[in-house]
């Protein structure tokens, strides 16, 4: 079945754009954020040199907070799932470090009955910290296995439960932890070197995670879990990896904090402290490294200033009143103000790295993009590809929802490389049929085959098997750039569709007339461009079949005509078959060689456009019996 000509084109022709892109995104971002951090640190040193050594403590506290906030950012910012459990990981890691590093003579006083020979162990703080981080990573992996399986509030509540359990166990295992009585004599960090090192490493990890393949896939699931699944992105693995990486970083931050305080207790990594760290994350902007830095600085400094003012100093020629709890008021007030006025944080999606990159791109004149269109943003033409693979066949597909048969015994066959229409009035079960085909809804009866392979299981598996779809109600990844929307699908294609020859991301953008807006966030595009972007994204997956669910919904007839051309162009360019679902008979007959008509969940008629247009049953279903 496979066309022999395609076999002669080596798969490596499609260059792994993701790798080079990774470098191009990560390095400027890393450098920019490092420069920002270094600048802040320089300001901090200047400030510290002019006063009390409490200022030194403030700076190391700020840097350690930054490690924790960036740790939170890696999971929460990239996956959009709220975790309350990360400080539980920090607590376990820090206790591990403390139990190994506290001098034996102190341990025999503080926790003489500790199990596993702990009172006799005394490791160097560095070794103990590394073991602590290792334990933290293991705990994060175990918790992640549970938390990453769920999403939304379920994950939040499971992680909250974990945090509470860690605290209760630490309070109650008095022989091991000393209970609520804090464990003192933890070797302390001296000077700034470790917090500084930690902050720079944290920025490095956060930037590289964000630009890594896993990070980008995680972000796609954050943007739209369903659409990500339809692009072949599995939710679980990227989330788990994000959880483990962020857990490891938070463990590191927790250990730094305990070594900076010199003591550890069950209440140290509390729910309240979690809220404080989250506040820092959210106030700045939880999705970017720059936002995390900004929020950490804003809250830490703000609390410090209000602490100073709350003690009633003589300041600015004025004696301030003594106010109990002023820092709390600042924290709550600033968090509330930011949430109400700028829910995405003070900086929103702004990242210094992205900004610098864009500046750089704009100022660099020679940035050769294949098929760069003229200013009028025309559509490039890409050389067509031969269709490969087998037919897409559903046999006896049906589903019953609580007694109501939404789709009943539908068997259709879509030929490779052909445009097949599926039409029916509203409520005919078209979208449900697509959902059955793509695995969003489990069928009650029937099977789906692509060539020799039966499609089964979750949507992401079927997408990887070669069926890519668009959605009736537009599901682009809204806060990602246009380019990144397409590039993420391309990333999946590299791993799972490499046997197909792909069209590069730039070519797809050019083909869709989106090149000149490639750096804009997808949410800012108008309706028609979002539609084309969704198709481009689906095409980037190098599917054998494209499923387009009402691609002209809400469009005028002239726009619809343009869309007809566009769908043809894209389908030809990637050599895929197309199944178009629509209720607009005119549009479908215009575009499709072969048409299936669905009514009340069942196949009403099948045939060529002409046959269908003449079929009296179709006319009746469409126009009502009065017109028959």
């Amino acid at each position, binding site marked *: 079945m496979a066309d022999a000509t395609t076999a002669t084109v080596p798969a490596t022709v499609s260059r792994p754009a993701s790798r080079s892109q990774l470098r191009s995104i990560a390095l400027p971002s890393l450098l920019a954020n490092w420069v920002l951090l270094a600048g802040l640190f320089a300001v901090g040193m200047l400030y510290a040199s002019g006063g009390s050594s409490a200022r030194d403590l403030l700076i190391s506290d700020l840097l350690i907070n930054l490690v924790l906030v960036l740790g939170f950012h890696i999971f929460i910012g990239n996956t*959009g799932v*709220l975790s309350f459990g990360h400080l539980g990981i920090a607590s376990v890691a820090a206790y591990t470090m403390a139990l190994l590093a506290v001098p034996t003579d102190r341990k025999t006083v503080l926790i003489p009955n500790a199990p596993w020979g702990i009172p006799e162990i005394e490791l160097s703080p560095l070794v103990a910290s590394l073991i602590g981080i290792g334990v933290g990573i293991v705990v994060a992996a175990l918790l992640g296995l*549970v938390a990453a*399986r*769920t999403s*939304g*509030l*379920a994950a*939040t*509540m*499971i992680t909250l*439960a*974990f945090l*509470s*359990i860690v605290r*209760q*166990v630490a*309070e*109650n295992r008095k022989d091991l932890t000393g209970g609520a009585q804090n464990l003192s004599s933890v070797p302390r960090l001296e000077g700034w070197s470790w917090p500084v090192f930690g902050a720079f490493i944290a920025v490095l990890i956060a930037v590289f995670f964000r630009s890594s393949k896993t990070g980008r896939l995680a972000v796609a699931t954050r943007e739209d879990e*369903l659409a990500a699944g339809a692009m072949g992105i599995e939710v679980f693995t990227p989330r788990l990896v994000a959880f483990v990486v962020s857990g490891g970083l938070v463990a590191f931050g927790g250990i730094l904090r305990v070594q900076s305080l010199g003591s550890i207790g069950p209440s140290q990594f509390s729910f309240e402290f979690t*809220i404080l760290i*989250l*506040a820092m994350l*959210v106030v700045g902007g939880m999705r970017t490294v720059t936002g995390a830095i900004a929020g950490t600085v804003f809250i830490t400094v703000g609390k410090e200033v209000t602490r100073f003012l709350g003690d009633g100093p003589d300041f600015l020629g004025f004696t301030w009143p003594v*106010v*109990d*709890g*002023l820092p*709390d*008021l600042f*924290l*709550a*007030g600033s*968090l*509330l103000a930011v*949430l*109400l006025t700028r*829910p995405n944080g003070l900086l929103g999606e702004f990242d210094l790295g992205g900004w610098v990159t864009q500046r750089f791109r704009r100022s660099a004149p020679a940035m050769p993009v294949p098929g760069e269109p003229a200013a009028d943003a025309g559509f490039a033409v890409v050389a067509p590809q031969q269709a490969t693979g087998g037919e897409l066949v559903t046999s006896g597909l049906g589903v019953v929802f609580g007694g109501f048969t939404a789709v009943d015994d539908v068997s259709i066959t879509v030929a490779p490389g052909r445009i097949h229409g599926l039409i029916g009035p509203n409520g005919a079960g078209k*979208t449900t049929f697509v*959902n059955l085909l793509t695995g*969003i809804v489990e069928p009650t009866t029937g099977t789906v085959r692509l060539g020799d392979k039966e499609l089964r299981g979750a949507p992401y598996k079927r997408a990887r098997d070669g069926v890519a779809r668009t*959605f*009736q*109600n537009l599901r682009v990844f809204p806060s990602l750039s246009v380019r990144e929307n397409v590039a993420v699908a391309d990333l999946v294609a590299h791993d799972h569709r490499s046997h197909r020859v792909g069209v590069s991301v730039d070519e797809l953008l050019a083909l869709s007339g989106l090149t000149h807006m490639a750096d804009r966030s997808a949410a800012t595009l108008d309706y028609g461009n979002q539609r084309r972007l969704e198709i481009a994204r689906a095409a980037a997956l190098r599917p054998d079949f494209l499923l387009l*669910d009402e691609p002209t919904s809400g469009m005028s007839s002239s726009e619809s005509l343009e869309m007809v051309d566009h769908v043809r162009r894209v389908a030809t360019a990637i050599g895929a078959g197309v199944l178009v679902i629509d209720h607009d008979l005119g549009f479908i007959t215009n575009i499709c060689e072969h048409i299936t008509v669905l009514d009340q969940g069942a196949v009403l008629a099948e045939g060529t456009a002409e046959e269908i247009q003449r079929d009296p049953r179709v006319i009746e279903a469409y126009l009502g019996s009065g017109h028959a």
Partner: protein
Amino acid sequence: MTQFVQNLIDGLGNGSTYALLAVGVSMLFGVMHLVNFAHGELLTIGAYVIYGMRSNDISWWATIPVAILSAVMLSMLIEFVAFRRVRTASAFTLLLTSFAIEILSHAAWRIGVSSTPRRFEAPDIAFKVVEIGPFNIEVWDVVSIAVAVACFIGTAIMLRTTMFGLSIRAASEDFDAARLMGVKANRVISGAFAFAGLLAGIAGAIWLVRRGQADPRMGAEPLLKAVIAAIIGGLGSLPGAVVGGLSLGIAEVYFRSWLPSDLQGLTDSFVFVVIAILFVVRPQGLFNVQSAERV
């Protein structure tokens, strides 16, 4: 057996307070996907109102309605000032907003009154015990259970018969569809906050009569219990919240009397482990929310 029944009565008494709070939490989740951690602050304002009035020797009977009213007003105020502005935001933003309000409330009481607790004495009825057969029945437990049952029945009737109740139910099913059918979003949400505030005020009155103390952070603990109760019952489900609250109250008492003493400190952990397992086994079923988004 006597012990078993005795525990059951005690557990129902505690659980009825949790359940009253949990119904409010669950209702707000239903209409706007908000887990409202600021809900506990309605207890705090009630406590300070009672303290203020009792220290001026105003009778208990007069203070309780005022305390309940203050909870209703604060609930509506919080909605108007804060949640109305972030109504369409993500669950994440809503949750954090509620935390911000909670911390703000703590700070406000701390600065406005004091971090040192304020006390008011409890009326005698709060701790009266009558012996019926082998059982020691606390009058206040009976009062709590009776008031709670009356509230639940009232809530059920309200939801079924009034226009407002219908709107709430419609909004909980599918807010967008409800709006298309003419439900006024602001009015429904504001009403839901008022109603949840009323239940919280009543729960607060029951609870405060015994506690006899107002302090800035007092609301956090019972609210956490109520959230747990609402989660056990399935957020968004009001009967679920009642069941969740009562079973949490009962579970606590049984854990306390049956667990060996060195494990008693871990009572909450056991509850959490059970919840976590429930979530992993059936995350959708527990949440009782239309998770199959329209595609």
